């Protein structure tokens, strides 16, 4: 198992390196430059700005310098909760941002926890609602308790967050006044964005759970259990759920990636100071280092999520082994 994990981590490092490299050159190939504005800056002033950020140097040299800065150089877990954890704990310097008085390190340190928290709430909602709806539907197959949750789930999948978000904000924020329409200040501010973001995944999870459960329920060992007179609740929760949830676990990898990187829309609608907005805005602004920084964070996160999913799968499913 440790060999498996070690190998997978090695693979992840290679993947992240490739992602950073491709992003580095792609973002520079994109048309438009970071310092253009409606009022045009004379070329000799632009030249000074490029020099300030080292952008006048050859791309390969910039790349090398970036890698030197971005490579982790130490590991000091005790410094994780300082002002600049990336630099203090890992020795990572992701460079300046062209559109902020803060460095990329600072921006990530400030915004990542927010997006992470939002994503965690959203996933929690998705799992709670999705799994219970899917289980209900599979147990009461072909009854109203199946059709209603599954129709709602279908609608949930079809309604994009940029439609769902404003509707929820309008109903619960403007009309009923239960929640703030935007912001990230009080705990109640978490509710609407997390529900908006979580509902889509809840819907998908509900459908996957239902499918997985039905497959297990039709298998022989369940019939055997029923014949032996095992209580129905025990059959569902003990024998069916474990196998029935396997597809959901597989889905958690992509879902986590989606929740975290897809939070841009929700963050914009609800005015949340998260990483998703930085990610998209930096691309619009051609804020090269910030694009690279956010992409790297997502790359690390997604590889970690996939690794975790792989491990959990093997633990849940005895038919799988840790193999390279």
């Amino acid at each position: 198992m440790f060999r498996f994990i070690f190998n997978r981590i090695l693979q992840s490092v290679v993947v992240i390196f490739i992602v950073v490299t491709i992003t580095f050159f792609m973002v520079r190939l994109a048309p438009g430059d970071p310092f253009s504005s409606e009022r045009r800056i004379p070329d000799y002033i632009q030249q000074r700005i490029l020099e300030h950020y080292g952008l006048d140097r050859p791309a390969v040299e910039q790349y090398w310098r970036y890698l030197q800065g971005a490579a982790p150089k130490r590991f000091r877990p005790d410094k994780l909760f300082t002002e600049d954890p990336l630099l203090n704990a890992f020795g990572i310097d992701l460079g300046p941002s062209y559109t902020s008085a803060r460095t990329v390190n600072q921006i990530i340190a400030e915004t990542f926890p927010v997006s992470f928290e939002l994503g965690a709430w959203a996933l929690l909602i998705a799992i709670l609602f999705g799994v219970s709806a899917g289980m209900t539907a599979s147990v009461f197959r072909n009854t109203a308790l199946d059709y209603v949750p599954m129709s709602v789930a279908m609608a949930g999948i079809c309604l994009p967050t940029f439609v769902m978000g404003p509707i929820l904000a309008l109903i619960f924020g403007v009309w009923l006044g239960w929640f703030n329409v935007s912001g990230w200040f009080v705990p109640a501010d978490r509710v609407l964005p997390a529900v908006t973001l979580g509902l889509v995944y809840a819907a998908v999870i509900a459908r996957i759970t239902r499918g997985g459960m039905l497959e297990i329920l039709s298998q022989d060992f369940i019939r055997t259990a029923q014949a032996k007179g095992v209580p129905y609740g025990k059959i569902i929760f003990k024998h069916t759920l474990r196998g029935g949830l396997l597809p959901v676990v597989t889905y958690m990898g992509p879902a986590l990636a989606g929740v975290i990187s897809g939070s841009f829309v929700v963050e914009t609608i609800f005015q949340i100071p998260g990483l998703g907005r930085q990610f998209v805005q930096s691309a619009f602004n051609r804020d090269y280092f910030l694009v690279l920084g956010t992409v790297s964070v997502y790359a690390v996160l997604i590889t970690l999520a996939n690794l975790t999913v792989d491990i959990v799968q093997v633990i849940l499913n005895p038919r799988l082994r840790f193999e390279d």
Partner: protein
Amino acid sequence: MIRLGRIDFRGCVALAAALLAGCGGGIPDVEEATAQGVLLKGNGSEPKTLDPQVATGVTENKIISSLIEGLIAYHPTDDELPEPGVAERWEPNEDYSEWTFFLREDALWSNGDPVTAHDFVWSYERMLTPEFGAEYVEMLYSMENAEEFHRGELTDFSAVGVEALDERTLRIRLVGPTPFFLGMLKHYAWYPVHPPTVEAYGTGRLDRSSPWTLQGRFVGNGPFVLEEWRVNQYIRVTKSPTYWDRDRVRLNEIYFMAIEDVNTEQRMYASGRLHVTNTVPSNDISNLRRTRPDELRLEPYLGTYFYRFNTTRPPFDDARVRRALAMSMDREAIVNRVTLGDQTPAYAFVPPGFDDFPRRRLVAHDPEAARRLLAEAGFPEGHGFPRKFLLFNTLEDHRKIAEAVVSMWNRELGIDFQLENKEWRVYLEAQSQLDFDLSRAGWIGDYMDPITFLELWTSDNGNNNTGWSNERYDELIRKAFRSETQEEHYAALIEAEEILMEAMPVIPVYHYNRIYLIRPEVRGWNPKLLDNRPYKYLYLE
């Protein structure tokens, strides 16, 4: 028992609410804020910097002008009048080429240091130092030798026309007579910065990404001080205890809320979280006219929406073709049926609002004459007119206007245009490299003088981007920059605008309006052409 239960329940709710509010430090709603003298203002996207010498945007300006004050301040009602700022009085010489400013004794930085003439000299040197790379540095080129110093042709800053005669007397020598100089001085490029603070952070004086502007470090001299900066949430400023005119300042705090999405801003306003919005979604204007007629403001803004030709590409190298397109555009229809915000149809390039500058119709809506011109140019009824592209940056509002205009040209002149939208930075690049046929653009005045609109079209101006040039025009603009009197200055500009509209390298479409919502509690908020708010005059009731 029942009564007790109810009280307990309420107590619990109150306690929970207090806990919830306490742990996040929530923002007050408008009622609470009004009672506390706190203004909640929607301010558009997150500001990039609060360093006045690095900033370039309207968003930044709205915050910086509460934190820093220049020699001349914003007048509460009339943008054309100078209001004493750090300078309590000033004296121009006879031909307005040399100005002496007398700084007030009680002008202090927020750390207690006096604001001196040396601070201004130091600030202007920082701005003009080539390595610093200030984007708005051209504003300072009106000082003698400033451009030479900035271009590196001169290395001794003492030759530049700014000098501290003593602690409280500043003399500025200009390249020539500039009667409108006081208007320019209101621009934030002329604001001072606090030298010891700037020196203390980053790599010092010339670090354009220096973190001196962050919360807890910022030192300014304006009516408010920076209290809190929460990225992508808000910037909170509080009344300054050291500001010279502090007795006049009536607001205790201002929240500048960073709100990216106009629809989110709209919902915040509707739910009582903002006193005043930055803007209004254009789709909502008609609805708001009915539902919030007293709160919706549609006020003239010193700016022009226009189309620019690439005059290096045929057939737009022919002034007759350009005029024909301009004359067949029905601006009334665009304003009344497309933009819907009471904008002023533009029949000249300079927007209305200058007291002594005449408003004229230099381009008429005359499709008949337009057809004749086009026929003269060799395209009778549009026959043989090549298929050209109309470029705009990706935004629904621009598309609507472009569609209307293109259909007008098709109906009146029989010519076809293809719409082409590009992402903002790609669009900017296409414009600056003359890689377009016809392109949408806009311009907002930097200060109150028509020259900020007309200087764009001189041969060597970086914002021209049309390929058009005219010797007489260049000469008139030069003359306008050196005029000793307002009359002479305007006479040159009036003639220049006639030349511009005759050659028509740009088609003015409409003059902008500022469209926003404001609650009745906000007082002292007057329509301003440049949308400059002297916050010290605002109050809530």
